[in-house]
């Protein structure tokens, strides 16, 4: 393979893969900004994927429904499925004050199982027919450009909109206040519980789209759903890397995408003289990077880059 073509193809595969992480991390950022560390994101992405694929199968066979409508319904179904998981998480952690880590892990166990159960009931040909709809407008492309479908652009848009809402609007200001210091937010009349619920449910819905995107745009295969859980954990890592800002996550997701497939690509480029056996070490990179980021931000101790002040701590008004 020609070196330059190889690099171009590499970037063109890496960036779209990154969008999976971008959906997951954007959703997780919204949730974390409300003070909840949702370790259920991998499960939520799985359920989102399952919900989306089930909806597409319901619209089978191709041609019965307008392609754009198929995509729209699938997106809504994935969002709804993820959102319902978020609702469950919020009910347990916000209303019932359950431990966030334990709830999140249970949610992931449940979500992964549920997705595998649903996917085993589906037939891949009955949902993969919609692949070209999702890869519009580059569905015909022979190169990796084909990955840049509608949901690819939607992910970028969503991340930018979330950044705007978080940083520039009143709602965003209130949400950040809830995650930083819920008692203060409560004192100035912000409905802390409502913000937590809405942020978690919307965040989970967005994460759910990530699962759908991965199957129906990037991977486009029968086995694709088995990788979603791993994508979910990386999305949580990306949140740290992005310093809790969706627009940085945009860059971070491309980096993560590049690192994630580095193992598959780099040894293939003969000019670099990297042996095949070092693939796993290359795959380790995103996680090593994340640990380094985590260490650096804690050592620098710059207040703006820290996790939200009340992350992981449930808010209970009567507590003094």
């Amino acid at each position, binding site marked *: 393979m020609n070196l330059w073509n190889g690099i171009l193809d590499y970037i063109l595969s890496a960036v779209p893969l990154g969008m999976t992480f971008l959906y997951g991390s954007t959703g997780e950022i919204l949730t974390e900004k409300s003070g909840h560390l949702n370790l259920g994101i991998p499960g939520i992405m799985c359920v989102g994927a399952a919900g989306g694929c089930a909806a597409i199968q319901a619209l089978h066979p191709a041609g019965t429904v307008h392609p754009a409508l198929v995509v729209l319904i699938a997106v809504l179904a994935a969002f709804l499925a993820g959102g319902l998981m978020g609702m469950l998480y919020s009910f347990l952690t916000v209303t019932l004050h359950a431990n966030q880590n334990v709830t999140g892990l249970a949610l992931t166990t449940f979500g992964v199982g549920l997705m595998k159960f649903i996917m085993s009931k589906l037939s891949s040909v009955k949902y993969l027919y919609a692949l070209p709809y999702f890869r519009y407008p580059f569905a015909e492309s022979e190169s990796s450009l084909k990955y840049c479908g509608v949901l690819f652009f939607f992910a970028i848009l969503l991340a930018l909109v979330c950044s705007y809402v978080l940083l520039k*609007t009143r709602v965003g*200001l*209130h949400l950040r*206040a809830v995650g*930083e210091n819920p008692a203060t937010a409560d004192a100035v*009349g912000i409905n802390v519980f409502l913000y937590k619920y809405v942020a978690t449910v919307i965040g989970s819905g967005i994460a759910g789209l990530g699962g759908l995107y991965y199957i129906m745009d990037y991977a486009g295969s029968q086995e694709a759903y088995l990788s979603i859980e791993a994508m979910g954990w990386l999305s949580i890592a990306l949140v740290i890397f992005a310093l809790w800002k969706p627009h940085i996550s945009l860059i971070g997701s491309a980096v993560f995408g590049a690192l994630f497939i580095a193992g598959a690509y780099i040894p293939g480029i003969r000019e670099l003289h990297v042996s095949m056996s070092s693939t796993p070490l290359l795959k380790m990179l995103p996680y090593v990077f994340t640990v380094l980021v985590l260490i650096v931000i804690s050592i620098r101790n710059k207040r*703006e880059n820290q996790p939200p002040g009340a992350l992981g701590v449930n808010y209970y008004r009567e507590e003094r």
Partner: protein
Amino acid sequence: MNKTIALELKNVSKYFGSVAANQHVDLTLYKGEILAVLGENGCGKTTLMNMIAGIYFPDEGKIYVDGEEVVIRSPKDAFRHGIGMIHQHFKLVDVFSASENIVLGVKDGKRFALRNVNKTVKELCGKYGFEIDPAKRIHEMSVSEKQTVEILKVLYRGADILILDEPTAVLTPQETSRLFDILRRMKEDGKAIIIITHKLHEVMAISDRVAVLRKGEHIATVNTQETNETALTEMMVGKKVSLNIARSEPVNPEKRLEVTGLTTVNADGIRVLDNVSFSVSSGEILGIAGIAGSGQRELLEAIAGLQHIDAGSIIYCDPKTGHDVNLRDKTPLQIRDLGVRLSFVPEDRLGMGLVANMNITDNMMLRSYRRGKSVFLDREKPKALAENIIKSLDVVTPGVTTPVRRLSGGNVQKVLVGREISSAPSLLMVAYPVRGLDINSSYTIYNLLNKQKESGVAVVYVGEDLDVLTELCDRIMVICSGRVTGILDGRTAVKEEIGLLMTKHDAGTREQEG
């Protein structure tokens, strides 16, 4: 002067359980005036203000704003009636800028733009003379800047009635005088201001009228120009109440602890202890009197090895060896390894002195569990000690395995004091040991302290009730803003004198405000 009533309280009462925090309080506040609310710790000032600000709801009585009866159920309600309170503990989001904090929670229907907020904030600053950068983040601010943000927060919401809860407690004299200038401008602008303070000279300097509270009741409201510090102190402390606490003469006093030039600076750069020097002898109780937050906690923690010290020395004279040991910059463990028999009953009983979720036996071990070479715990001796304390101090508990959080306040204190005394200290420090205790429990504690004193222990007693201090202690050291303002003989000291010393700030402050 045109006097319009801005706010009126009639017959307001508030009870916490069986304790009356406020009883039948009447208060009137006029537009364009500064009313000082004065009283000792625990006299109900803050509770009263919290009822106006919507934190508490009165059990009886009525509140009128601009002549109309109002019901204030939440801080939001208070804002709607133009009332804003600046609390002692700031409620700010640290990583937000001043403007972001100011606009937080405001739903004015206008399009949200921080630029507009910055502009309004700057206008307010110009109008009243604040100096603040709207884009600066809270965690980069000094205490006085944070306070400015809190005040701006209230003004931004259009408050006409401002309540400031001890605003000067955290300020330097220069900052205080700047704050007072701002308050005067607000007053000229027609705002009605209530300021809670302990500091008499500030009352004289800033207020138009003074309302004095004592034990939850409104004693009087007087015009500032027609009164003086001595008269106010008398109203504040009231007549002497005799408690009949036994007090013996110290026997063979020997110097046990000598503190010289102790100075500590906190994270905000404020000198919480400023050149503190004193000594304690065996067989005496040294009382420490002062307004809450004058450096009492830091002083005891510095001696116990829990506080960073910037200057000075803490010399402990070992009664066994006769040697002197400097405790400065030592950890609690090092202090004990030096053979210093120091016991400390901290103010925060369940958060520091005891572990709330552990049972009485396990709490007994906190100090002593390290004893012996074994890697295992010895629960026998602590259990015996627990049983002993339960019996001798009449601790009401189902048994030694009850978590201490389930005990009542008095019983918790008995457990804590009992444990600290059990290690046969030669120096015992207690902070507010009778706070929240009923009369009987309080006397149990006084008796315990007296017994310790009689057996030759040097006792340091930080207290708030001046009647107790003057009856229990052999000497009373008064501190104010981290400085020692006087050391009096407990047998001859009178409450008024202590009260004046508690609020005696150095001359420099007065001149500036003069």
